[in-house]
């Protein structure tokens, strides 16, 4: 028996977290993400979990890191300005291989921007927002169903790979109510645990995730955000140890990418023109595909739900088939840069940017742009 619920994106994320076994939530209120926090403030104490409203976003993410080392499945949610404050914590979570999930319900920046208005301007920040070479996983829902499913996937991926996972939602998805189908039981991936004294920060193979020692069990774990060897001993001048560490932190993610890579390809086989999008812009892209079909234009749409590492194959393939690729997004052209890189000159890549007021990109705007291109 599968149940159906009517949820807004933010509620679906909170429910997804519960279904994924999140038992520690810390956060700081910020529009348009607060419903996630409010929902979990009610739900977690009833289930024996921990809900903690921190003094700021920095404290929120650091308490997540502590809780995660204590064994909790930990999550927070925020929006642009709070996400900026969390970059410090994300950096150390990457370096210390700490599983946790950060939801960024995007609004318009920079600065305080247009606080409760939809935007998609945090894409590059999610990937590169911290100092140093680093990788993490970024997922992006386009529907309430995605919000639920991708939150489960985010928690599982974070645990299994010992990596922070970012969910990039946006205000339009956060507040759109839609039916969500539920499975009886969600799959649950656990973090690797050591059998005996095993190095908690080293692996003999890039695909192997080092086991995370539990706290309070005599493992005497030594965790540091500085460069460290396999046992967590600081090594702040050895060039080889540093290089090996930062390379492994990226390789372990790439080695497991099939497990968390999600995208949809609609009508790409017959396509004469391609559209690549994520989040709320992807919804408009799918609607535009229908409008264009009525006019006899065959558009193929790739909806990206994993944004980092980017699923490259579907876009490369699309670029080989079509006259042009269109990238609609609620920013001044961030995803477009990647699509250009992947198209590698095989076809022109055209951006369609819309920012301001929280207005969605309307399907008619996408359709009009495509018509311009194919004409």
């Amino acid at each position, binding site marked *: 028996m599968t149940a159906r619920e009517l949820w807004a994106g933010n509620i679906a994320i909170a429910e997804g977290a519960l279904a994924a076994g999140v038992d520690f939530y810390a956060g700081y209120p910020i529009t348009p993400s607060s419903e996630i926090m409010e929902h979990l403030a009610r739900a977690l104490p009833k289930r024996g979990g921990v809900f903690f409203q921190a003094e700021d976003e920095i404290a929120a993410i650091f308490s997540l890191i502590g809780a995660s080392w204590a064994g909790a499945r930990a999550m927070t949610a925020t929006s642009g300005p709070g996400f900026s404050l969390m970059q410090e*914590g994300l950096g150390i979570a990457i370096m210390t291989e700490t599983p946790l999930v950060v939801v960024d319900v995007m609004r318009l920046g920079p600065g305080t921007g247009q606080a409760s208005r939809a935007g998609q301007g945090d894409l590059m920040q999610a990937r590169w927002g911290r100092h140093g070479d680093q990788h993490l996983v970024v997922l992006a829902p386009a529907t309430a169903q995605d919000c639920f499913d991708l939150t489960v996937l985010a928690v599982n991926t974070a645990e299994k790979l010992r990596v922070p996972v970012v969910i990039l939602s946006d205000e339009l998805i956060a507040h759109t109510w839609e039916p969500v189908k539920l499975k009886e039981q969600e799959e649950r991936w656990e973090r690797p645990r050591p059998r005996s004294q095993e190095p908690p920060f080293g692996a003999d193979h890039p695909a192997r995730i080092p086991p995370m020692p539990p706290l309070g069990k005599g493992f005497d774990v030594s965790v540091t955000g500085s460069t460290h060897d396999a046992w967590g001993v600081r090594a702040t001048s050895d060039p080889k140890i540093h290089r090996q560490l930062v390379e492994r932190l990226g390789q372990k993610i790439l080695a497991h990418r099939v497990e968390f890579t999600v995208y949809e390809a609609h009508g790409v086989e017959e396509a004469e023109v391609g559209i690549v999008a994520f989040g709320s812009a992807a919804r408009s892209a799918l609607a535009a595909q229908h409008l264009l079909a009525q006019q006899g234009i065959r558009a193929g749409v790739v909806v990206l739900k994993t944004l980092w590492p980017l699923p490259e194959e579907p876009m490369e393939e699309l670029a080989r088939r079509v006259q042009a690729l269109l990238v609609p997004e609620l920013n001044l052209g961030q995803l477009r840069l990647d699509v250009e890189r992947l198209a590698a000159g095989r076809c022109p890549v055209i951006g369609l940017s819309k920012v301001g007021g929280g207005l969605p990109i309307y399907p008619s705007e996408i359709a009009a742009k495509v018509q311009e291109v194919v004409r």
Partner: protein
Amino acid sequence: MPVKTKPMPELVRGAAHPMEKYLRTERLPHIWCSGCGLGTALSSFLYAVDDLKLDPDKVAVVSGIGCTGRIAGYVRMDTYHTTHGRAIPFATGLKLAKPELKVVVYSGDGDLFAIGGNHFIHAARRNMDLTVLCVNNFNYGMTGGQVGPTTPVGARTTTTPFGNFEHTFNLVHLAASAGATYVARWTVLDGRRLKEGIKEALTHKGFTFVEIVAPCPTNYGRRNRIGEGLDELRFYRENTVIRHGTDPKAAPLEPGKPIVVGKFVDIQKPTHLDLYETKAAEVRK
């Protein structure tokens, strides 16, 4: 920058230190300068753990960044060397997710009260069940002796070359007014009383705070004509007064005034975890 000393020759090392069992001896020698107060600060803590017969597997030590921040790396327990200022929120998450652990934050004045000040006052306000041990050496040692929130007025540091003109924090007053339920101050001269104070802090329920006044001869002592570490200890001996129960407001560390040490606050109040659990039990009914 701490000055690197040569590894201690075997002869001088002699017999094992009685607290070696709590140390990651393979990481020694430590990086601290000779004459630095951090060695005594660390050993007082280890003696306290030993006296109390705490199971070291159930003690977690969290540090921030700085010379004091290095303590975590030397202790053979579950230890976390976090980023600058964030030891308290990290420790908060640890404690909330695993209440049976004793969680100790060991860090310096700059880490806990400049960059980490906001976290400190809120953890104290919540009466979060943490023991915060702060080594106050009046400047940023690790980064080369810059002014900090506890640097006395008039003191020379690398960023106050003409003397510090900013007002300073009185840490024990700050801790008490923010809500800490145990507050004490000792100097590293008096290792025994310091150890007893740390023991009380470790056994007291709730947010406990011990300020540990310590010399930083390399960066602070040298620039302020205090001299070597030993000279500063001599200064403590001549200028320290014990005043238990004194109003911490009346005990600022000011040039020309005695260093008032002792136990200033020792009260009971429900902790954050107590209150959370009570509330959760209510809603579960």
